[in-house]
């Protein structure tokens, strides 16, 4: 059987079809919807597992559909796409569970979960895209499917956030489209290939390629929240917690970052990009964003806003790792793609639990939270420490490699940036931890839905605990086979032709 041809399509459809069915479910069909959700998510994880096994044994999965002569819709599984696909499918499973618990009893759940599933299909599509056009298509699909999630609450504030989100992302998308078409006219089909495909073109169209790179990065930078294109992200945190988790950790922001990685490594080729001299400005922007996001996060009292600015900062690590020309920094950047996802999703899960169970939205209201909800707060703590880069948690591993890369490319300033950002991270996370664990609470909770005792619902609690365990595991077992780091090393070796 020609499973190879269809596997990738099935991976996409596993969530897409689920989403479509869910749209037509009655609001009350809670059990069926949950079942469908989990079934889709599990199926996707399993299929992705099959794909990884195949990729590992040098199997080529490719599906192709001709859109226009010379313009194909290509799904292809390579090591890089496997990385992102795994991240999104695994985290989707967790987030689905969380979202089921989080939205219990709220209106419009069928709509929510429908778009939720489609959003993940789009993300997987972004991961599996085999050329820039396919990437663009799924990238825009992602924008569209997340908009309803952002405005889900339907309040004035969330609608405004949604509008900002669309204005930013669609403008970015327009630039991306422009760049893609331009590049297409210069270089043809724009297939992603490990090691890059534009070395030939670069000799003739140097200045065009530089301009296109700038356009591409601007377009992608909107989603990756590079300064000054990050404005939508802190606003979009009005969305329900599972959505924020998804936006920040799995889907939108990551799609942007992943796009930057793809463009630099698999489209331009890192050597070509270095040769064109476009990496240094990107690194500069990323570095500035890292610091800027951290500084801004420092002054936010709203927990989710603080986390949002933290994302602005943290995601730029990926860009920084990508842009510092070097084997090691690439490892760092790519690892951070995964690690940041796990950590940030944990943080948002926990923020959601605090808001949902106790009505705690602000950092200043978190005093004594550790004693009230020790498990949730433990997960939060682990993720926050990981964000700071405290060893041996996930964040440390990626920062370590970015640091190694910075030194090996003689960019000592990047080490300073890393250190400064870590210090700022510590400055905005540690006080939270301190207040939550070690301060005595005087006031009552803003809105205690659990009536005095206990943690949130198990469906809320299990996902962050699982991801927090992952944060520990990927750090402690970083060198073990099949860890993200291991996989990233494998990718990077191919990219640099080692």
């Amino acid at each position, binding site marked *: 059987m020609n499973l190879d041809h269809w596997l990738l399509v099935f991976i996409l459809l596993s969530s897409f079809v689920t989403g479509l069915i869910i749209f037509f479910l009655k609001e009350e069909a809670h059990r069926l919807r949950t079942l469908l959700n989990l079934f889709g998510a599990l199926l996707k994880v399993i299929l992705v597992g099959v794909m990884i096994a195949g990729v590992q044994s040098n199997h080529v999965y490719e599906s192709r559909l001709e859109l226009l002569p010379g313009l194909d819709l290509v799904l292809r599984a390579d090591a890089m796409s496997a990385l992102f696909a795994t991240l999104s499918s695994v985290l989707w499973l967790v987030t689905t569970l969380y979202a089921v618990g989080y939205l219990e009893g709220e209106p419009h759940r069928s709509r929510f979960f429908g778009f939720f599933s489609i959003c993940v299909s789009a993300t997987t599509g972004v991961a599996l895209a085999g050329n820039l056009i396919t990437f663009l298509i799924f990238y825009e699909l992602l*924008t569209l499917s997340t908009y309803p999630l952002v405005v889900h609450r339907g309040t004035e504030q969330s609608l405004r956030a949604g509008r900002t989100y669309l204005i930013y992302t669609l403008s970015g998308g327009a630039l991306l489209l422009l760049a893609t078409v331009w590049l297409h006219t210069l270089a043809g089909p724009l297939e992603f290939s490990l090691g890059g495909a534009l070395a030939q073109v670069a000799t003739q169209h140097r200045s065009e390629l530089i301009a296109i790179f700038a356009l591409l990065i601007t377009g992608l930078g909107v989603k990756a929240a590079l300064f000054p294109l990050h404005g939508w992200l802190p606003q979009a945190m009005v969305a329900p917690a599972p959505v924020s988790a998804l936006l920040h950790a799995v889907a939108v922001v990551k799609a942007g970052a992943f796009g930057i990685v793809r463009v630099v490594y698999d489209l331009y080729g890192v050597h070509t990009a270095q040769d064109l001299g476009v990496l240094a400005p990107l690194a500069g922007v990323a570095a500035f964003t890292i610091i800027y996001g951290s500084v801004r996060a420092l002054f936010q009292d709203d927990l989710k806003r603080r986390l949002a600015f933290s994302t602005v900062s943290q995601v730029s690590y990926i860009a920084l790792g990508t842009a510092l020309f070097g084997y090691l920094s690439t490892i760092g950047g790519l690892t951070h793609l995964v690690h940041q996802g796990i950590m940030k999703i944990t943080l948002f899960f926990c923020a959601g639990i605090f808001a949902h169970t106790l009505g705690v939205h602000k950092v200043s209201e978190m005093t004594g939270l550790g004693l009230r909800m020790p498990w949730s707060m433990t997960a939060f703590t682990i993720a926050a420490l990981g964000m700071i880069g405290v060893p041996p948690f996930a964040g440390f591993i990626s920062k370590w490699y970015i640091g190694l890369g910075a030194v090996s490319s003689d960019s000592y300033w990047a080490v300073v940036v890393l250190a400064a950002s870590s210090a700022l991270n510590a400055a905005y996370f540690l006080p939270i931890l301190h207040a939550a664990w070690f301060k005595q609470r005087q006031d009552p909770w803003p809105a205690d839905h659990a009536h005095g005792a206990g943690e949130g619902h198990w469906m809320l609690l299990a996902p962050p605990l699982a991801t927090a365990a992952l944060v520990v595991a990927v750090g402690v077992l970083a060198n073990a086979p099949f860890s993200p780091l291991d996989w990233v090393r494998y990718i990077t070796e191919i990219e640099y032709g080692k």
Partner: protein
Amino acid sequence: MTLWNTAPWLVWCIVLPLSAGILTFLFRRAAPWIGIASALGSAIAVAGLAAQVMHSGPLRYSVGGWGVPLGIDLRADGLSVLMLVMSAVIAVAVSVYAACYFSDTDAADKHAAQAHQRAYFWPLWMFLLAGLNGLFLAADIFHLYVTLELLGFAAVSLAALAGKRAAVVAAMRYLLVSLSGSLFFLFGVAILYAAYATVDLTALAGKVQPGPLAWSALALMAAGLLIKGAVFPLHFWLPPAHANAPTPVSALLSALVVKASFYILLRLWFELFSAVVTPATATFLGLLGAGAILWGSAQALHQPRLKLLVAYSTVAQLGYLMLVFPLTQNAGSALTAWSACVYFVLAHACAKTAMFLAAGNIAHAAGHDRIADLDGITQALPLSVAAFALAGISLIGLPPSGGFIAKWMLLQAAIGSGEWGWATLILAGSLLAVAYVLRVLWHAFTQVEVARPLHRVPRTMEWSALALSLLAVLLGLMAARPVELLRTGAPASIHAPGQT
């Protein structure tokens, strides 16, 4: 299978709706069924024709065997087949929708007008379809004139169908505009005949050379078609006429009727006048298109009513079609631009029909179409809002919709020929489209307890809108075949040597 391959499908495309027009006029009670059957029948005929053209290239058929110069010839190539397919698809969907729309007695305020509307809709619509199909198959410019007029009469009558003051006034203006446009066109035909003694498109194609007669013919015909095609600044008649018509009629007018004029312009420009047109004229038309995009979008942003917004969006979208003229100037990207605009026509037809149908559903359910008061409409009409959103996606040009593929090709042509101005315009137009589509969708997510009594909207009406919008979105994934088909019999002027 020989029947399938040899049957004169071209004739059936015209005869079926024409006879259906008479039948529906005679048998009013069965009119919806006859209408749907004829729409389906002509769809089958179009399918047969498409198979023939794909199989054996452009076709030509002499009605009654008279032949040139006195008889009427029909011809079909890639372009006309695509247009026919478009009209067939829209026809089926709109017929189904209309069958439901005009028999829905729930609409209390429409009781009086109901019977009257139902009685005249079907014959007029069938004549419209016949005129359209005839126009797409016409092989000579005079025949084009006649079908254009037939189309115009049917369209005007349909626009007046609602019978209300605004509708009648709009239809009157539409008629005057339409007639003057046709006369301009006819004058051009006369001049061409005076100069070259033939009206056959193919025969004329090689003959027309620059000169005062050709120039004036071009100017007259183009101007006539521009005003009939509602190209800025001659679009003034379109929004009231489209917005005040009954919903299925608005959809038809916006999706099909204005495209007919564009189709003719396309034929003339690339087949007849390819030796006459200059880059300056092309740029001028492009500038009109740019004006249309910006002006139409700006107007759409200011409209208080949903259907007017959609109508102005048509004005804006028609502007994109005008870009084909400047973008084909560069031989290297001519074919891309040409394919782009034809595909744009297809995508826009599907999306705009879906959008009008959805808007109609919303207006029907809410009892009004004031955008500001549409809060909570999703709860009542999730499918229609979804259809509106999906159609909006295609209008904006977001992937994977047909609009995306069309805009992709437009951009490709623009960038390929180094026309950065047009490229910027295309993107700016997309963002403006985002803005006006979002004006409506903004209200889709507001959470309001629906207190107002809402009219029930039949499922069929919702589904036909949704189906078309899905088609508009999926068009992006099946562009390869149509674009391939478009090369069949494509005018020589856009086939640059070496261009793939």
